[in-house]
């Protein structure tokens, strides 16, 4: 039991259910976002842009990492095998950050900020709470531990997403909506492991204490 009281915890759980859209509105809006993206441009994907962002940073240190190359399909090549993959597709994006996929992901920050303004509880007050309740309950209000878990999580999630060739957006949502075999199998593998992991780390122990 962390320092957060039982009443606080339950009130927060209930607030969290009322401060977000219900599943019907949320489902329609989420479905429309994914559909509109495919209808207008292409399926949504996010994790590739972490490679592009990293590549942009790397070229600041080593400008020769990505070069113009008329022989490459994309017009760019790289000494790195990954950036050079598929005719230098990623190398081109690193050299030209103002491209659709990268700007799309950058714009998601703005969407999150606007969403935050609308996140209010029933008393119409914005809910400001940096420390997740699930974390406080198991580990107390230790911010360094939360940041450590977030950082390690980030490393594993993006390494895994790049190995899989996509993440929750690209494989699970965009994939399953197209009935792609890789989307179904990715979703099964992810949930089969994410559920026991979350239970191991965060399952409340009140049931044991009773």
């Amino acid at each position, binding site marked *: 039991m962390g320092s957060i009281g039982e009443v606080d915890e*339950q009130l927060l*759980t209930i607030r969290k*259910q009322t401060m*977000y859209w*219900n*599943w019907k509105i*949320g*489902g*329609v*809006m*989420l*479905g429309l*976002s994914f559909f509109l*993206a*495919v209808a207008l*441009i292409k399926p949504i994907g996010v994790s590739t842009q*972490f*490679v592009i962002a*990293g590549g942009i940073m790397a070229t600041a240190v080593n400008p020769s990492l990505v070069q113009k190359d008329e022989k490459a399909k994309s017009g760019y090549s790289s000494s790195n*095998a*990954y950036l050079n993959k598929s005719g230098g597709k990623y190398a081109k994006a690193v050299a030209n950050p103002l491209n*659709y*996929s990268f*700007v799309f*992901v950058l714009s*998601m920050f703005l*969407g*999150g*900020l606007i969403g935050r303004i609308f*996140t209010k509880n029933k008393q119409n007050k914005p809910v400001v709470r940096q420390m*997740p309740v699930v974390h406080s309950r198991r580990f107390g209000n230790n911010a360094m531990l*939360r940041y450590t878990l*977030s*950082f390690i*999580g*980030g*490393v*594993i*999630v*993006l*390494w*895994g997403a790049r*190995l899989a060739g996509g*993440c*929750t*957006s690209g494989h699970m949502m965009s*994939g*399953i909506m197209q*009935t*792609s075999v*890789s989307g179904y199998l*990715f979703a099964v*593998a992810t949930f089969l*492991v*994410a*559920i026991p992991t*979350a*239970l*191991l780390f*965060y399952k409340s122990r009140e049931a044991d204490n009773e």
Partner: protein
Amino acid sequence: MNDILLAVFLGTLFGFVLQRIGAADPDKIISMLCLKDLHLMKTILAGIGVASILLFAGMTTGLLDSGHLSVKSMYWGVVIGGILLGIGWGVSGFCPGTGVVAAGSGRIDALVFLFGGLVGAGLYTVMYGFLKSTFLMESLFGGKTTLVQTGEYQALLTSVPGWAVAIIIGVALIGIAGILPNTTGRKDIPRVVLPERERS
């Protein structure tokens, strides 16, 4: 330029929607993965269902160009990568997209997650030269394969009209979303009498 404006519009919309359904809130993600608060699961299932129905309805009526589809390959790395992503997702409560949105909404832990993500993606970029020749990249189920026919990719089910099966799956996903309860495991929640205004 037109593409860039669309990227700003669609990216902002997507980020806003992810935030408003609670997907950028690690409490919602972790409570879902602990099978306690299924509200987000319902939203995701319904979202995939709605998107799929609109997509296949659009393609069948010819309003949507099937060239816009982009099916990802199936290989061993998809499963192993999915397992790793599942571990990191369960530990942190963020995935790549929701991490970006949560950082935009002002979460410091999400910003730390993104730094971790840059490190993870960077490590993969450096290691790819070695990984690409391993079994991880071996194609499965013929690579870019779909369950039903979409026009461009090879399909597992060829004798049935693809749009009909896809729409049935979409309706089924929305149906499952409707059946699932919002919360489970009541005994996990401490028994406390709530003030009237907090009940819903």
